């Protein structure tokens, strides 16, 4: 068909080949098109994001595997193994339970930080490789997260107080919906929404002051309740963080509380993420403060905890989608008030972001992206069936009211990632790695690997400039000065944009009046 068309072109064979190979291997292209055709562009952006995360994890896995794991495997095969390498003790064999707990046999494999050697192979400095690979991964992750967030924000409007107007509803008919039943449903929904917005406008003139106060009171009460719940959960995690139960509890909380919130139907998005953030930060704090006192190989323990977290997150996502579907299907039959089940794009995207943020743990467990790849791959098919099964799938209602919600959303996307990244940075700069395992054993802190390398570089005449830059820029106070300067510039730009927005708003008002 397509190939035939290319073949019929009066071009030379080389050029035709150029055209046909440019059609790169597009994973899931047919599936994406059918999803877009049935459910519209906003749901499609979720799946595009999911696919992108999968590609990113595949890429980072390959990078990590190539630069860090393969040299280690090669080293293990060479005949002169020194006693620094932790071999698998005789009595530990592979039992199936390891997949769930991540402990035991896995502890001695390349999955975790602990079994990486600190020796230099044939000119290949393991410490440096490990350090730089992880650093590059973090930077790439951060940049791409920013990029995706900006894209996503443009494609999926979250709030503009004028966006509930009828005219907007009419103008933004989704032309990419091609399934006939879906089109019919959208038309019915649009009719309902138009009628609702008409009656809402009629009603709004009638709201009295006392009703408004009641409204605010309820909002405040809900907010208070949710924050106290969040604190309660965080505290319980702190005290229970020693056991295996932690990831189980964490994921259970993440699953149950959102359902609970959706009953209230308010503040859903950022309460959720606030909860998750607080849990993550409590965990980070716990690891940083208590665990180094424990003794050897604590980084592997952290790696294991992260592995368990990722695993349970995945299990609970699966459970959540089954459970949520089941519940809403039952709910529509029993309680018509709850409405038709929807596929809430924003909440699902936030869940994806959370899952990806857990991959910060790559420092402690370099092969974590492998788990992520598996997770996202399965998640795609899961979510696709969830979306198809809720076949009364509506375009998500625009529930956001305040204009601040947009900036909050962006903030919430980055905050967990930056907290994680900062804690990793703090770890490398200040804490002493454990003495008996890992690629950085024997050093004062992980960052001194770079120190050592720069020291070595001094002897090589060609790279004096690197040493110069390192000594004068990064080590000295100029570095902090530069960082502050950058932050100040960003702040200024942000203020300028805000000022322009205000100006536009005023001009617009002038035109109208």
């Amino acid at each position, binding site marked *: 068909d397509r190939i035939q068309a290319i073949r019929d072109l009066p071009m030379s064979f080389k050029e035709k080949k150029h055209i046909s190979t440019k059609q790169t291997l597009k994973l899931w292209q047919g599936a994406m098109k059918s999803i877009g055709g049935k459910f519209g562009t906003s749901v499609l952006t979720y799946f595009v994001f999911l696919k992108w995360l999968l590609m990113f994890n595949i890429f980072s896995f390959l990078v990590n595997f190539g630069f860090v794991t393969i040299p280690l495997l090669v080293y293990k095969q060479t005949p002169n193994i020194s006693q620094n390498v932790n071999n698998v003790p005789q009595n530990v064999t592979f039992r199936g339970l390891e997949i769930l707990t991540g402990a035991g046999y896995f502890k001695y494999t390349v999955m975790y930080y602990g079994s990486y050697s600190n020796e230099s192979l044939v000119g290949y400095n393991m410490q440096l490789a490990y350090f730089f690979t992880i650093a590059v991964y973090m930077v790439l992750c951060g940049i791409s997260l920013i990029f995706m967030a900006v894209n996503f924000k443009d494609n999926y409007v979250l709030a*503009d107080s004028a966006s509930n107007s009828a005219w907007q509803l009419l103008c933004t008919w989704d032309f990419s919906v091609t399934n006939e039943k879906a089109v019919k449903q959208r038309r019915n929904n649009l009719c309902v929404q138009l009628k609702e917005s008409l009656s809402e406008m009629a009603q709004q003139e009638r709201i009295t002051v006392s009703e408004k106060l009641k409204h605010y009171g309820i909002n405040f009460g809900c907010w208070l309740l949710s924050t106290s719940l969040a604190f309660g959960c965080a505290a319980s995690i702190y005290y229970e963080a020693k056991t295996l139960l932690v990831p189980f509890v964490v994921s259970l909380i993440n699953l149950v509380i959102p359902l609970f919130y959706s009953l209230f139907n308010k503040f859903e998005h950022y309460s959720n993420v606030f909860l998750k953030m607080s849990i993550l930060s409590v965990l980070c704090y716990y690891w940083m403060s208590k665990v180094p006192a424990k003794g050897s190989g604590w980084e592997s323990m952290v790696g294991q905890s992260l592995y368990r977290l990722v695993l349970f997150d995945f299990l609970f996502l699966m459970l959540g989608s089954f459970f949520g579907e089941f519940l809403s299907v039952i709910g529509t039959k029993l309680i018509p008030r709850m409405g038709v089940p929807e596929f809430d794009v924003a909440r699902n995207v936030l869940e994806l972001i959370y899952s990806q943020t857990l991959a910060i743990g790559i420092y402690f467990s370099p092969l974590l992206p492998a788990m992520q790849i598996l997770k996202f791959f399965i998640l795609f098919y899961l979510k696709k069936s969830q979306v198809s099964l809720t076949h009364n799938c509506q375009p998500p209602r625009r529930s956001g009211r305040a204009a601040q919600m947009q900036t909050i959303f962006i903030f919430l996307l980055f905050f967990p990632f930056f907290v994680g990244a900062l804690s990793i940075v703090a770890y490398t700069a200040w804490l002493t790695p454990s003495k008996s395992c890992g690629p950085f054993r024997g050093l004062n802190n992980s960052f001194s690997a770079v120190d050592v390398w720069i020291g070595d570089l001094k002897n090589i005449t060609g790279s004096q400039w690197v040493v110069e830059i390192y000594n004068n820029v990064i080590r000295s106070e100029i570095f902090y000065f530069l960082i502050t300067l950058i932050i100040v510039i960003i702040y200024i730009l942000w203020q300028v944009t805000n000022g322009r927005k205000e100006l536009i708003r005023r001009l617009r008002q002038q035109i109208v009046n």
Partner: protein
Amino acid sequence: MGTTASQLSKESLSEYQELTFLTKQEILLAHKRFTELLEKHEKQQIDARAPMGRITTLPELKSNPFKERICQVFSTSEQKDGSLTFEDFLDLLSAFSDSATLEIKSHYAFRIFDFDDDGTLDCADLEKLVNCLTGETNDAKLSSTEMKQLISNILEESDIDKDGTVNLSEFQHVISRSPDFVSSFKIVL
């Protein structure tokens, strides 16, 4: 094999690439789909027109409530029958593609919504638009009072010069406030 007029020449391919927002693969795919719509004897002609009836059988357009308007807007035929040549078809896909700009999309959206082709959206156009988008069954239709109320709300919101109709610049002003217009106004083969 051999070169017949039903195949794209290299020059026209690059010309189309320059003049539209489509990529080479998209143009080739469009050519293939378009020639499938033509009759056997028409495939040999260069400027063959596919009638509206056949264009609206394309799966991407079949369920679209605006399919006839889309064909009418992009048609360059003198009989105003909505038939499209291949170049009209490319125009259509280009305006609905991912890379088209907001101005192009809002311009064409305006023309599509302008049912009587008079250059402005008056009450009759708006009423037809709402009916097109809400549905034909009786319970999905808006009653006439609701319709009147809705239209007056719309006009109040977007009619800046208060002449009772929405012209192109007022329409584009409304569109600029809804960021998901660009991603919704999309048809991809």
